[in-house]
């Protein structure tokens, strides 16, 4: 078996692979983050590379994609080495510079999100019992009148100081307790750490000299596409650092199903390592930024969807995707950071947000905390517009949920010029009435490289309004429209010409891609309609709608209503809450009440399986129309309907 070297330019990394290893394997070996939507099946074309030196052979069926200044891109997963190689990974194929929604989008609201209370987060979830804290207490010395054992004495004093009753000491504490108490003059600093899923608090000693050290908690949103982490000072409650990155699992597939299949075939370890790498790198970046040590992070809360959670914990996710869709567990045992593989204080407790069902996970549980809807009398709807399209409807008395499987189209996947919300992504679009002129804003104001979710919603709305597409999303033939081009595979609309873009190629949306977007938006709307129908309520019964999702810094609700993705109710009812999962994780770090809810709320959510019965399918087909087959459902979009 011959071996060949593959040198990556300009990264200057060299790896050795065998003749049977694909170049995608080489890229993964080199640790260069690459897009691999179909996880190496050779169907998506996202892992395009350029061979600068050497020869490769293409597996049967691979077709080079001509798209960049005349150079041929080859799909790395279909290339096998015939000699030593020098390979370039073009920008389009790399997962780089993610502008990840770190937490801070609230749409119109500038301060922390809260609806029912007047000012801040603290009213709803008082910052009274962080998941880890240190206290210094003075303990009465034992006497003949009060001869109880050291531990009970300590517990009694803790109870007096904090009101806590269910306390559990570590063995380490017991071993040095008598000495620590007597040498310290009956004054002791101890740590109190909430044990995940338990009413008990773990009591441990604090190294002498470290009593005044700052201590932090880690909040992580483990998204399928992006991972966001925050370091929270548990004494002050402030976020001292926040970082985001793409989920390295993207090299094994862009969606949970592809990754579950990968895990079924190759085992879950590789995926587990990828996510742990991602999180630990974020931790490292944050540690560096504020100059603290890993052992200063004393607790962690992780919120991810069911599949992400399974992979994080090394659990077999195979049955999640097979009817009747059973996860291994929805609630997870308490685990220490060392066991979990997180590079923080090795005895830190790791709290995992519990989920409800295969397609309703801890990220939604965490997000729910943020909406506050579980305390409200009136009805709210919480929608996470992402690949799974989870939504929760309810109030303090009941909660139902469903996942409409919207697909990743609004995150840019499956769209040739689609991209995540990072620099160069078109995020707002306006098209003139005659369809000839396009104005856009990009993230970072850099020359456009592609278009992200919020831009796609805008684009769809304007394409219909300017008569470029009809109600089914088909592009209308019109030789007068310079931006509408006919190709062998259908029509395309050019959003930005090559001269103005960052990659010197036209940025366009094709007929097929628009149909894809329509399917995604139809799934969201159909999910809402179906869920409302299942509980027998009209859309007017909803008082507030919370939109979460990381497809942009904001979402144009008006445009989303125009295309029929969101219900036509007054705009004031909508609130964009950005990354609700990491916000919820942070709440769990800081508030005992939030934590209690965190562990219990998932049980109270009834998950409705949309694939049961015909209703969802019927609603879905009905929604495959701009804005909808029932025009009367959208009075502000179609004022003439019903005449």
């Amino acid at each position, binding site marked *: 078996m011959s071996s060949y070297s593959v040198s990556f330019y300009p990264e200057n990394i060299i790896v050795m692979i065998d003749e049977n290893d694909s170049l995608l394997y080489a890229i993964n070996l080199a640790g260069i983050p690459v897009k691999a939507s179909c996880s190496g099946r050779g169907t998506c074309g996202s892992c395009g590379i350029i061979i600068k030196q050497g020869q490769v052979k293409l597996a049967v069926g691979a077709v080079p994609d001509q798209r960049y200044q005349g150079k041929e891109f080859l799909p790395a997963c279909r290339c096998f080495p015939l000699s030593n190689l020098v390979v370039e990974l073009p920008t389009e194929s790399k997962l780089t510079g993610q502008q990840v929604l770190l937490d801070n989008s609230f749409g119109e609201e500038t301060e922390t999100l809260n609806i029912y209370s007047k000012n801040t987060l603290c009213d709803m979830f008082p910052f009274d019992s962080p998941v880890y804290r240190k206290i210094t207490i003075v303990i009465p010395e034992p006497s003949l009148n009060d001869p109880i054992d050291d531990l009970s004495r300590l517990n009694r004093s803790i109870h007096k100081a904090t009101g806590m009753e269910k306390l559990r000491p570590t063995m380490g504490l017991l071993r040095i307790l008598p000495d620590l108490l007597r040498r310290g003059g009956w004054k002791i600093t101890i740590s109190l750490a909430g044990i995940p899923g338990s009413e008990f608090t773990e009591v441990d000693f604090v190294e002498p000299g470290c009593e005044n050290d700052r201590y932090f908690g880690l909040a992580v949103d483990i998204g399928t596409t992006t991972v966001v982490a925050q370091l929270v000072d548990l004494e002050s409650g402030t976020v001292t650092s926040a970082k985001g990155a793409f989920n390295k699992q993207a090299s094994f597939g862009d969606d949970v199903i592809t990754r579950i299949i990968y895990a079924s075939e190759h085992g879950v370890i590789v995926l587990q390592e990828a996510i742990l790498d991602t999180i630990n790198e974020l931790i490292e970046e944050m540690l560096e930024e504020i100059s603290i040590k890993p052992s200063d992070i004393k607790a962690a809360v992780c919120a991810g969807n069911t599949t992400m959670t399974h992979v994080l914990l090394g659990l077999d996710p195979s049955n999640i995707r097979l009817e009747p869709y059973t996860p291994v567990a929805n609630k997870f045992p308490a685990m220490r950071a060392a066991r979990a593989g997180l590079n923080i204080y090795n005895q830190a407790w790791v709290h995992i947000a519990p989920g409800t069902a295969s397609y309703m996970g801890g990220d939604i549980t965490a997000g729910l905390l943020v909406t506050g809807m579980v305390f409200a009398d009136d009805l709210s709807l919480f929608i996470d517009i992402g690949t799974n399209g989870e939504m929760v409807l309810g109030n303090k008395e009941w909660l139902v949920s469903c996942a409409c499987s919207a697909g990743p189209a609004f995150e840019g996947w499956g769209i040739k010029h689609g991209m995540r919300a990072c620099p160069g992504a078109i995020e707002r679009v306006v098209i003139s009435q005659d369809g000839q002129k396009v104005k856009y804003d990009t993230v970072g104001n850099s020359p456009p490289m592609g278009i992200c979710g919020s831009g796609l919603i805008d684009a769809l709305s304007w394409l219909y309004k300017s008569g470029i597409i009809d*109600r089914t999303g088909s592009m209308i033939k019109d030789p007068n429209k310079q931006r509408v081009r006919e190709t062998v595979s259908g029509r395309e609309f050019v959003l930005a010409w090559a001269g103005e873009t960052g990659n010197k190629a036209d940025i366009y949306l094709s007929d097929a891609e628009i149909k894809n977007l329509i399917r995604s938006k139809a799934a969201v709307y159909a999910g809402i309609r179906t869920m409302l129908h299942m509980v027998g309520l009209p859309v007017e019964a909803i008082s507030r709608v919370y939109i979460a999702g990381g497809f942009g810094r904001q979402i144009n609700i008006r445009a989303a209503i125009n295309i029929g993705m969101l219900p036509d109710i007054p705009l004031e009812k909508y609130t964009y809450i950005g990354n609700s999962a990491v916000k919820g994780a942070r709440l769990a770090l800081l508030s005992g009440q939030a934590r209690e809810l965190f562990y219990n709320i998932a049980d109270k959510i009834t998950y409705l399986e949309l694939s049961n019965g015909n209703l969802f399918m019927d609603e879905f087909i009905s929604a495959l*129309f701009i804005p909808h*087959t029932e025009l009367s459902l959208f009075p502000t979009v179609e004022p003439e309907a019903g005449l």
Partner: protein
Amino acid sequence: MINDIWNGSIFEMVIGIGPNTVKAGGDCALPFLRDEDAQPVKPVTALEVWDVEPREWSDVLTGAFPGVLHDPAAWAKKCAQYGADLVSLKLAGTHPDLGDASPEQAAAIAKEVAAAVEIPLIVTGCGIEEKDALTLPVVARALSGRNVLIGSATANNYKDIAAACIEYGHNIIANSPLDINLAKQLNILISEMNLPLHRIAMDPLVGSLGYGIEYAYSIMERSRLGALNGDKMLSMPIICFVGQEAWKTKEANSPENMAWGDLKRRAVLWEAITASTLAQAGGSIFVLRHPESLKQFKVHIESMTALNI
């Protein structure tokens, strides 16, 4: 007797001109309910004629049209003699596999057939969307002013066909694959081109007895109920191409030595029962092939709409 009172009705479509128009639709209640609808509407019937001689029709069928199957005009005359309300001309010869006749050739035959009979015409294409989009506008122009019913338009080719119907004054058949939402969507798209709603007929793609009739029945029933409840986008009369479906089946074609009894009787019944069942669901226009089924169907309709039951 408790009667439903409806606030909507089926549009009435007029096909043809002069003294020989046929009206389809116009129902104000569910089918055949004498007490709810003062003047219950009878479905109208058509017999099918092809522009080329059909090669695969069974003897039972061809036996009903001796000597005329090669001559569309003569065949159409025979259909009128058999008592059909309309002739439904299928331009099968325009199909790429059946001769790929040009739009002009098809239009010429259509004109001939139109001139040969007094009863109004339905004209349908070969079913290949791209070809029909080329053929039907040319045919529409050739038949300009005759107010025929032209079809079928689908979501993929409706624009050219609808434009031609508007320009040359015809009605249109809107075809959707057994889905009430897709049917509505197509009606909306066509009406937004400014073709008046009463000039659209819906073809839900019916299946024959034993081959999906239940689907069609449900869709048609829902459609009728929607119309009666005021949904204008479902108020179009429904056309059922029963002949082409019923005569595909093995029940209508397999020879007599199977335990199914007499072939001719069985085949005719297959078509007649499909038609009468779908009439119960609310069909307005029935396109049949065998004159005997036509006769049985008409007898059935007469008895269902008779004054004294």
